[in-house]
């Protein structure tokens, strides 16, 4: 039981994260209007991943979890990266 008694995240932290997420949303909408050519998709994915990181780290409490859980998250991420990477090797060099 004692392990669940730790780390009540302060309201201020959550509200700050929310404001950052809203600002990043504004950035990604604004950047999408500017024509960055080949970089526009890359930029959109990067901003989305930063937002996802904030949601995982604070809202989903990962910052305060044990190392095991943090490392486990790498399993689906690496799996996906490998699947997508290998698929594109096939798509591009077929």
């Amino acid at each position, binding site marked *: *039981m004692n*392990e*669940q008694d730790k780390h*009540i*995240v*302060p*309201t201020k932290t*959550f*509200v700050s*994260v*929310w404001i950052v*997420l*809203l600002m990043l*949303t504004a950035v*990604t*909408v604004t950047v*999408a*209007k*500017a*024509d*960055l050519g080949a970089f*526009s*998709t890359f930029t*959109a*994915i990067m*901003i*989305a991943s930063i*937002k*996802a990181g904030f*949601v*995982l780290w*604070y*809202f*989903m*409490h990962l910052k305060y*979890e*044990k190392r095991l*859980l943090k490392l*486990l*998250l790498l*399993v*689906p*991420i690496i*799996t*996906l990266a490998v*699947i*997508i990477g290998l*698929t*594109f090797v096939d*798509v591009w060099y077929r």
Partner: protein
Amino acid sequence: MNDIAQTASPHKDYAGSKLGMWLFLFTEILLFGGLFLVYSVYRSMYPQDFHAAAAGLSVVLGTVNTVILLTSSLTMALSISALRRGNSRRSVLLQSATIVLGLVFLVNKYFEWSGHIHEGLYPNAPELLTRSHGEILFYGLYYVMTGLHGIHVVVGLVLIGIMLTLTMRQRITGADYVKLENAGLYWHLVDLIWIYLFPLFYLIT
């Protein structure tokens, strides 16, 4: 049942509950990951068509729904903090706010989808079939991916509704809140997936 089983307090495994929820969320990430894979391959094959088709989506509606989901994640996270500080009334209010925001998201989605359907842009529609191959694929993926996400929103709302009832009945308390936390994790995952869906469908330039 013997006496010992009846008098002993039920076994709770906080870390195990949470780990189990995370393992389930990993399968959800891979489920949507498969769809993102299909999306990215077709987009790399038909970049112009995807660009043209995406112009038909409303950036304003997409942005509004993004803000709504992000805010609902905030109220969900705050409801857990409130409960853990012993303020279950505040937690109930924040959970209700999360549900309301989720419903508003779905209402927006309803208007968005019915708008497209009126324009004749639904799978296998005669109007859509006159368009290029890539645009047909774009709208197919749009309906499947935002549709599957929408189902997740509905499931999340039902889960939070159950948590709300349990909190009001004092079955979820500041001392035993792992159910609420796991429902919250699910809701944040729904938000997480939308964070990627939004730029990939609405913001193609």
